[in-house]
Each structure stands twice: as structure tokens, then as C-alpha cells.
């Protein structure tokens, strides 16, 4: 009887603050007027707040694209920075509507953790970074090394498996938060820093002296990084899935942020349909209006543009397209047809 009034008061407060919401994610998001998106707490190039707390980066663009498609406003997003431990429960509990946070798609997460993964935004793999003066040129020379890694990631499991398979030992130093891993490695606590290669590239930039550190050539795992939503809401899953495909498809058809308005009237029936020309069923099928793809691309550009803007060769991260090139260029990015 003591706890009950507290809980009901708190509940009333929360409802008043957050607005009453119904069962479907799409409805919830529309009524709320903004999208709740879970991101990494600061990885350069992927999701990073500036001094005023405005988020930008590769992962952030996915949230913006979905917000543009659903709410007609790419800025109607609230970002929740999540640690490794929190990210899945935040999604399960409904605190966020989608997770766009360098998260690897795995069987365990897809099933036992109650997630659904949208198409892969970034094909990555686990790499190793060491100090140049150690004179190491291969992971296989790392027997006995001290390794800094983040807790609760696929990274820490891959690491154990790889060292086991090669009969090597190591000493793990494990933090929950990525910035603590970085600080510990930078302070010399570890010989090796292991994470997704993209994450290593991002974090090398913020080391005291980036030039002192080198990446080892081996990639020891597959890390398909994909946005995720909760199990059990198929419509919302479709929206996030096809927003990602739309970004990729747009690149394939040459639709860019700059030319999307004129491309909407394209002679090519595929492009016209995707961008919601007269009589196109893309809105009706997915439960949004016809212009949702148009808005998403107008807001963030196509996949290639996003890549170039945040992580590509002309950014400080200097990541090549590689596996993330379109399938037509020998990469793995392949959108399902908008038909």
C-alpha cells in the first residue's frame, strides 16, 4: 500500500509526459511525434554527439531515414546512447523503437533475445590494433598478450574462440563502456585492442597519438552490423527493413539527395514506383503514404552518399567500400526489388 500510490503516481506522470500509447509501434511513434532510437554512446563516424548534444553519423542516418519516412521529419528523433549491456533490454522493454548501434546479427540475438534484424548496413569483421613499436605483424604472434575489449559483445566471444582454435593464451581486460576500453588501452593497460574494424578505425582517431597504432591484417570474424527492432511487430519490422533497402536501391538507380525530386518523375518505371509516382502502391503496401521513400532519400541521401559522408575514404576514418560496395561493383550490398 506504500508502494502502490508511488507507482500509480509515477505511472500517471509518465503517461502525462510521454503520452498514452497503443500497442503498435507505428501508432506509438506517430502519436508520440518522435522516434526513439538507440545508438552507441560516441563512436566517431557512426554515432557521436557534438558539444550541444546533436547526434550525427552512419548509424544515426538510419534513424533519420526512418523518421523521415514515418513522421515526415528527419529531425523528429530522440537518441538514447546505450552501452552493450543495456542495448537489448532497452529494445525489449520498449524504451526505444529501433536499435541502430553497430550491432552484429547473430542466431542467438535473432531468436533467444527477441530481436528482428533489418538488412545489414555495414559488413564488418573483428580486427586487432597494437602499438607500432611492438613489432607485431600478425594476430598469431599475440600469444600471452593482454587484450582490451568491451563486455557483452560478440567480440569477446570471437576472441576466446580464435585464441582457443590457435592454441594461444591471452589475458582479457573487459569494460562495459567503449570509452573506458579506449582509455585503458591508451593508458598502456593492454597490448591489444580488439573490436570491429570500423570501430577500431574510429577509435584510433581519438588516441593520444594515432600514428603510434597499427591495425593487424587478420579479420577473425564476420560482423554484419544491422539495425534491429523487437520481435512481434511485423509492420514496424517491414518499415525499418525496407527503409534500409530503399537507401541501397537508390544508390543502384543513381537516385541521390540532390536529384531525388527530378528522379521522382523518371521514365524508369522502377524508380518512379519506388519514389511514389502517381498510382504507385509502395505506400499502401507498407502502411505509409506514397512518398515515404522519397522523403527518406531527400533527408539522408542514398547508401553510397551516407557511406562517403561519414566513414568513407575522404573522412578521417578512411574506410574503403570493400564488402560494402553494391553487388554490381563486386560488394555485398543488394537490395530486394521494390515491386
Amino acid at each position: 500500500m506504500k508502494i502502490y500510490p508511488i507507482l500509480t503516481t509515477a505511472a500517471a506522470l509518465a503517461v502525462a509526459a510521454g503520452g498514452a500509447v497503443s500497442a503498435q509501434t507505428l501508432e506509438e511513434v506517430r502519436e508520440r511525434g518522435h522516434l526513439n532510437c538507440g545508438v552507441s554512446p560516441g563512436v566517431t563516424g557512426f554515432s557521436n554527439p557534438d558539444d550541444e548534444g546533436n547526434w550525427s553519423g552512419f548509424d544515426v542516418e538510419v534513424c533519420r531515414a526512418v523518421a523521415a519516412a514515418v513522421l515526415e521529419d528527419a529531425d523528429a528523433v530522440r537518441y538514447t546512447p546505450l552501452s552493450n549491456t543495456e542495448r537489448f533490454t532497452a529494445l525489449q522493454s520498449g524504451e526505444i523503437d529501433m536499435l541502430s548501434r553497430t550491432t552484429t546479427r547473430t542466431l542467438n540475438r535473432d531468436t533467444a533475445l527477441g530481436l528482428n534484424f533489418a538488412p545489414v548496413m555495414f559488413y564488418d569483421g573483428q580486427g586487432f590494433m597494437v602499438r607500432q613499436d611492438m613489432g607485431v605483424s600478425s594476430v598469431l604472434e599475440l600469444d600471452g598478450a593482454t587484450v582490451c575489449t568491451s563486455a557483452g559483445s560478440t567480440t569477446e566471444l570471437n576472441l576466446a574462440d580464435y585464441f582457443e582454435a590457435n592454441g594461444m593464451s591471452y589475458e582479457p581486460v573487459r569494460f562495459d563502456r567503449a570509452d573506458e576500453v579506449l582509455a585503458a588501452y591508451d593508458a598502456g593497460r593492454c597490448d591489444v585492442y580488439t573490436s570491429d574494424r570500423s570501430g577500431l578505425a574510429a577509435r584510433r582517431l581519438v588516441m593520444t597519438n594515432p600514428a603510434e597504432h597499427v591495425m593487424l591484417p587478420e579479420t577473425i570474424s564476420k560482423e554484419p552490423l544491422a539495425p534491429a527492432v523487437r520481435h512481434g511487430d511485423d509492420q514496424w519490422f517491414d518499415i525499418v527493413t525496407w527503409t534500409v533497402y530503399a537507401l541501397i536501391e537508390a544508390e543502384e538507380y543513381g537516385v541521390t539527395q540532390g536529384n531525388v525530386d527530378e528522379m521522382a518523375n523518371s521514365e524508369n518505371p522502377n524508380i518512379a514506383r519506388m519514389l511514389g509516382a502517381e498510382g504507385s502502391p509502395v505506400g499502401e503496401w507498407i502502411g505509409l503514404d506514397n512518398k515515404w521513400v522519397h522523403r527518406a532519400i531527400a533527408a539522408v541521401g542514398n547508401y553510397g552518399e551516407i557511406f562517403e559522408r561519414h566513414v568513407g575514404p575522404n573522412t578521417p576514418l578512411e574506410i574503403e567500400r570493400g564488402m560494402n560496395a553494391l553487388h554490381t561493383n563486386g560488394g555485398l550490398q543488394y537490395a530486394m526489388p521494390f515491386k
Partner: protein
Amino acid sequence: MTDTLTPPPLKAPSTVIGPLDWIRKNLFPDWRQGLLTIVVLWLLVRTVPPLIDWLFLDAAWAGDRDDCVAASGACWAFVNARWGQFIYGFYPVEHRWRVDLSMLTLVASIAVLFLPRVAHKGWIITGSFVALPVICFALLHGGPIGLEIVPTDRWGGFMLTLVVAVAGMLGALPIGILLALGRRSQMPAIRIFCVTFIELFRAVPLITVLFMASVMLPLFMPQGFSMDKLLRALIGVALFNGALMAEVVRGGLQAIPKGQFEAATASGMGYWKMMIFVVLPQALRTVIPGLVNTYVAIIKDTTLVLIIGLFDLLGIVQAGIASSDWLAPSVTTSGYVFAGFGFWALCFSLSRYSMYLEGKLNTGRQR
């Protein structure tokens, strides 16, 4: 006894004459103590000047990371550059006046505590502390009174530390009082519940309670019901500290003589009337120092919210330390020293206040 630094209050008349005599008596009473004094003095001479050099003389007071790397001392330029963030978090610059105004309101409510004896002082205090959270929430969050809404994910820094601490204090007190009353209730069902609640929350670390609030509370709620992350953390902090406070309040309740209860019952007062007008005012008065000490603990505990991803003062200093434009060894140490000093100033002044109150309460009773 306003100051526990001075040993027993009643001393024999001083026989010490002049500073030299004082030094002999207090620093060199015998050869062993004298030796100790010399060793300690030598250690102080070895450590204090370099510390002062590091803190002040060799420190970089302005500039960017390169200036700090060049300087051999602390990096106050970092604190300087990030000052706004340390105080306001990500609160929009054009709305920061709202935070300032809330802080002023808080200071005003505290000033009420120092009012000289006026009529209804108790009610004025109670009223101002009921109004405080309402006013501050309206100011900080905005909404009903026409201010633009600033969502809680933009709150941070010292301001968030204050929000968590004040909400924890104000929330924990009523919970603690109810639990303490329940623990002494004659009704077994209520007593058992309160004892279990208190002992359970006292036995586990705050971290697990915060984890529960941030990770599990949403799972307990019906589908589609969402609660602000900060609000959940506040509930966790208030429940946890409510249990601690219940034990402090219980001490006060036990100190009330039985005659008070009997007199109140005899004059026809009901349970609540008796508690509110007779027992609690006396009980709470005696435990004020204990309550203030619990408040100091709450302020120190606010740092734990960084583990569930809220940026309090320590959290935002840490984020600054790890940012690309400031990563350097002296920045790390300076950041922690700055945050440490901030917390120290708050907690130290509060614990001094508690000692002052203790002294004041004691003189009242000494006659």
C-alpha cells in the same frame, strides 16, 4: 560541540604560554612524538610544493589540448572549455536561463531553512519543499506553462546531479517516514511488508536497484507503457534511499517517550493526527543530523547513474576526457580532480551543516 575537530569540550585551564610552548607541547611532547613530527614534516615538504606546482603554477589555464600536453601541470583549459557542458549537460544554450532559475529556486528553498524563528516556520518549509519540485520540473522540462519542452535526454552535468540528488532527497523522506511508521505498526501484515522492504533494499547495492529500474521495470509494465529513463532512475534512487532513511527515522521514533503517545491518545487524537502533530515533529527533529548524513550519501551515490547511461557531472567529465579533442594524460587527472572537488565541496558543506545542527539541537536540550 560545533566542531568535532576539537576534542572534549571541557578542558582544564590552559597551561600553555606562547607559541614556542605550544609547539613543544603539541608537536614534541616526547622524543618519539618529536621524531614522528619531523618525519611527517619532511614528507609534507616533499609532497605539498610539487602538488601546488601541478595544481596551479605549472597548469595550463586556457587553450586547447596542445597547450595542456606542453604544460607539465594540470589541464584547467579542459575544464574551461567544457564548463558549459559540465554545468548544463546538453541543455540548449538559449534555454540555460531556466536551469539557472531552477538553481536559484533551490537555493531560496534552502535559505528558508535558515529563517529565524517565525510563526508557522514548519509549514513554510514543508510548503516550499513541496513547491520546489513542481516549479523546477515545470521550468526544466517545460510544457504546461508555455515553455518549449526540453526532453530529459538533454539534461546532464552538474544540473542532472542536482536533479537526481534533490529528487532523491525529497522522494526518499516520505517513503522513509511511511516505512518507519509501518515497521512500528501493530498490524503484522504491514509490519512484515515494511521490514522485508527495508531489509531487502538495505542489503543490496544501489547499482542493482538502478539496473532493476533501467532494465527490468519496463518489463514489469504493460505493453506500450513507456516511462522516462531519468524518471525510472529517480524512482530507484528514492526507493533505495527511502529504505535507508526509514532506519534513521525509526531511531527518532524510538526516542519519543511513551508518555507522548499516551497523552495524544488520551486527548482523543487519531493515529495520523497523533503522528503528524505530536510524534513526527519531535522524532524528525532529533534525527536531522542523521538525515543530513543520508543526504550526503545520496549526493555521492548520484554518480552511479552514469553506469545506466545518464550523464551526471562525473559522467559528462568522463565523456569529455574520452573525446577526441582532449585525450591526454593530464586531462584525465584534471577532469577527475575537478569533479572530485565539485562533489567534495557539496558534501563537505552539507556534513558541516549537519554538525552545526547537531550542536544547535544539543544546546537546546542542555538547558
